[in-house]
C-alpha cells in the first residue's frame, strides 16, 4: 500500500451491492480519505444475463440501481466526504469491479461481506469477494456485516 503523504490510500474503489454493508464501507472509506488528497469511487454493478445485450437500457432506468449509489452519496455527504459514483452493467459483478478498480488505478478495493442469519448464520461470500481477493491488482479490504451483539 502506498505511504505517500501518510495517506492510507490514494484512490479507493468501494463496491456497493445495495446491501446493509454499503453504508459501513462508504463511511469507512470517506472517513479514512477525508482531509487528504484521496479519491473514493463507489461502483455498483448491475449484472445482466446473456439474454440481454450488454448495452441494453436497464440500469439507467432502474430506480433501484440508481438509489444504491444515491444512498451512498447521501452517506458520504453526511460525513462531509467526496464520493464519485459509477454505475456499471456487466455479465459478472466480481470481474467488473476488479476491472473498474484496475482501469481507475485504484490502490484499494473495499467490499462488504453480508451476514445471513438464517440457518444458524453464515457469511454470504458469493463469487465476487473471492474473485476480487484473487484477481485485484491492489489491496483488498473485506468488511463484514456486524454480527450478534455488534449489530445492536
Amino acid at each position, binding site marked *: 500500500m502506498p505511504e505517500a503523504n501518510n495517506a492510507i490510500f490514494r484512490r479507493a474503489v468501494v463496491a456497493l451491492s445495495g446491501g446493509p454493508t454499503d453504508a459501513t464501507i462508504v463511511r469507512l472509506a470517506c472517513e479514512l480519505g477525508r482531509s487528504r488528497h484521496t479519491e473514493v469511487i463507489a461502483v455498483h454493478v448491475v449484472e445482466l444475463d446473456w439474454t440481454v445485450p450488454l448495452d441494453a437500457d436497464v440500469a439507467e432506468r432502474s430506480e433501484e440501481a440508481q438509489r444504491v449509489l444515491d444512498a451512498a*452519496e447521501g452517506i458520504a455527504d453526511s460525513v462531509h466526504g467526496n464520493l464519485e459514483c459509477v454505475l456499471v452493467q*456487466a455479465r459478472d459483478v466480481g470481474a467488473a469491479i476488479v476491472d473498474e478498480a484496475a482501469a481507475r488505478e485504484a490502490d484499494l478495493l473495499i467490499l462488504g461481506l453480508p451476514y445471513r442469519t438464517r440457518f444458524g448464520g453464515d457469511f454470504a461470500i458469493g463469487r465476487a469477494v473471492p474473485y476480487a481477493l484473487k484477481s485485484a491488482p491492489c489491496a483488498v479490504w473485506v468488511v463484514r456485516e456486524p454480527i450478534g451483539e455488534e449489530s445492536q
Partner: protein
Amino acid sequence: MTAPNSPLRGRKLGDRRVVVDRPHSAYFRYAGPGVMIAKAAASAPTTALGRRLARVRAVVFGKPLSTAQEIEERLTKKLALPIFSSDAISSSAYATDEILRVLILAGVAWMTWSIYVAGAIALMLTIVAFSYRQVCRGYPSGGGAYVVARENLGPNFGLIAAAALMVDYVMTVAVSSASALANLGTAFTVIQPYKVELGALVIMAVTAANLRGIRESGNIFAIPTYLFVGMALLAIGVGLVNTATGAAHHLPVPLHHDDVLAGTQAFTFFLLLKAFAGGSVALTGVEAIANGVPAFKPPEAKNAANTLIIMAVLLGTIFIGLTFVGLQYDVRATTSQGATVLGQVGAAVFGDGSFLFILLQISAALILFLACNTSFNAFPRLAAILAKDDCMPRQFAFRGDRLAFSWGIVILAGVSIAMLWAFDASVDALIPLYSVGVFICFTLSQAGMVIHWRKERSSGWAWRSVVNGFGAILTGVVFLVVAYEKFGNGAWMVLIFIPTLIAMMLFVRHQYASSARQLTMRSGAAIPQPHRHNRVVIPISGVNRAVVQALNVARSITTDIRAVYVSDDPTHSDEVRELWAQAVPDVPLVLVESPYRALIAPVVAYLDVLDRSWPNEQEEPITFVLIPEYVARSWWERMLYNQAAKQLRAALLGRPHTVVINVPYRRDDTRAAASATEQPAGTLVATDNGQPH
C-alpha cells in the same frame, strides 16, 4: 435517455462492462421508491446574470444551507443566551434610571425606595420567568404567549398576544437603534442630522447579519452581550466590596446641573406604582426565548428553559445589583440626556475616565444597540408560527437560503425603518410606544397558564396556578399603569396598531379558510373523466413559426381550433387571410378589424361572444387561449417582444372557464416548427416581419 456508452474491455478474455450514464445525479438523488431529493444544483441559477447575483448573495449572506443542516444551525445555550437575551439584559442598563426618575419627584429622601421597587420588579421577573419556563416545556414548538393564549384562552386572545408582541418587537428595533444613535450623537454631533439614514443603515446591517442565519448572527453578536454582562457584574462586585469595606462614600461624577432632577410632588401610592411600572421595562424581551424554543439544540425545551433561567438570574442580579450599589454611592436621578445610573456607578467604582469605565460604557452602548437583535430572532419565528396557523401570509413560514425566516426579518427591518423615519429617529417620541404591548402579552400568557394548570391538574397545579394568577394581576396592573401614563405621549398609537394588526390577521385567516373550502375535495371521491367540451383560440399576429408551434400544441388538445387576428390595417388583414388559407386550411381564421386600434380588448370581447353563443342547455366549454410567444436569447432582446402577449395574459387572468397557455417559440425550435409545416426551414412564409407582437 442518453445513449449508452460503448462497452469497455475487461482483463479477462471476453469480459465487457458498460458504464451507465446517470443524468439525474447532478440534480437529484433518489431517496426511496418514487422519491427524489433535489440537490443544490437543481436550484442553482442557469443564466450568467443569475449566477453572478448568486455569487454576490453568497458573499453577503453566505452559501445556501440545506434543510438537513438545520440541526447544525441550532443554538447551544451559550450562543442562544446572547441572541435571545440581549433585549432583556440590555434593559438592566436603564431600568433603575426609570425608577429613580419617578421617585425623585417626591424628593431625594424617597429615592431609597428604589431598592424596594426593584425588589418587587425582581419578584415579578421571577414569576414571569417561572411562567415562561413552563411555557418552554409545555409548548416546545415555540410561539410563547401567542400559543399559550391560543390554546387556553381561545384563538382571538392568541391573536391579541401576537399582535401586541409584534408591535413591541418593531418598537424594540426602532427604539434601540434610535437610542444607540442618540448616545453616539452626544459624542459625535456631526451625525445628528443623519440619524434616520444611519439608523436605517444600522438596521440593514443587523438584517444582513440575521439573513446569514441564526448561528452566524449569534457568533457576531455574542461578544458584546457577554462583555456587558461581565463588565456590569464586575462593577457591581467592586461596588459591593467597596460598600462592605466602607469605601463607597462619594460620587466622583461631575453631573451637569440641568440634567439632575429634583422633587416637585408628594409621595403617593400612585407615584410608587408609576415607579414600579417605569422599572418594569426591565422585563421586556423576557418572552423571546419561549418564542424560539425550536432554535435550540436538543433537548430543545430543557435547554430553552435553562437558558431562560440563566437570563432571568443575570437580568435580576444586574438590575438589583446596580440599584443597590447605586444607592450606596448616592447616585442621582437624571434626565435622559444626563449620566445614567450605570455610568455613575461605573465612574464611582472604576474611576471616571478609566479603561474599565470606558469599556463598561462601550459595552452598554453596544448592548443597547444589539437589543434589536432579539427582535430579529423572535419576530420572524412568531410570524412563521402565525403563518402556519394561516393568520399571516404563508411566505412568512418559508425559510430562506440560510434557514432564516427571511420574510419576517425583511418585513421587521422595513417597518422599523419606516418607524424611525416617521418619528425622525427621536428616542423621546418613540419611547412612549415601547413596552406597552409586552405587558399585554405577559398578562395573557400568565392567565393562559392558570387555565393550563387547571386543565392539566399535574402535581403542584394549585400553587402554580396561584403564582401565575398573581403574575397575571401584577402584569395586568403594570399594563394599565404604563398605558395610562404613556397614552397621551403616543401609546394611543399602539392601542390602534394592535387592533389593526388583529383585524389584518383575522382577514388573512378568513381568506385562507375561504380558499381552502373552495379547494377541498370530498375525501374518497373518485375523480371522473373530463366531460366538458374543449376549444382552442389562438390570437395571432401574423403567420409565422411561433404560430405554427402554437397550432401544433392546439392540435394535441382538441380539434375545435380557431385563430383570431386583430388588425388595424385592412390591407394587411387580407394578406394574412390569404397566407393563412394557404398554410393552415383546416383551421378557421377570424379576422377582427379594430378601427380604434385596440389589440387586447377585441380578443377578450370575441371570447365573450363565443361564450354567449354557446347553447344554454350545455355545460360551458373550457376555452384554451394559446398565446404564441417568441423567446429571444438575451434579456434585453426579450424586452422588444411579447408586450401584447403579456397584456393579453393579464387581461385573461381570472376569466371563468378559460385556460391561458403560453407557447414559447425559441430559435432552436426552428427545425421542429419547419418540419411541422412540411416545408424546409427558411421557406416558411412569414408576415408581420416574422415576429409576434
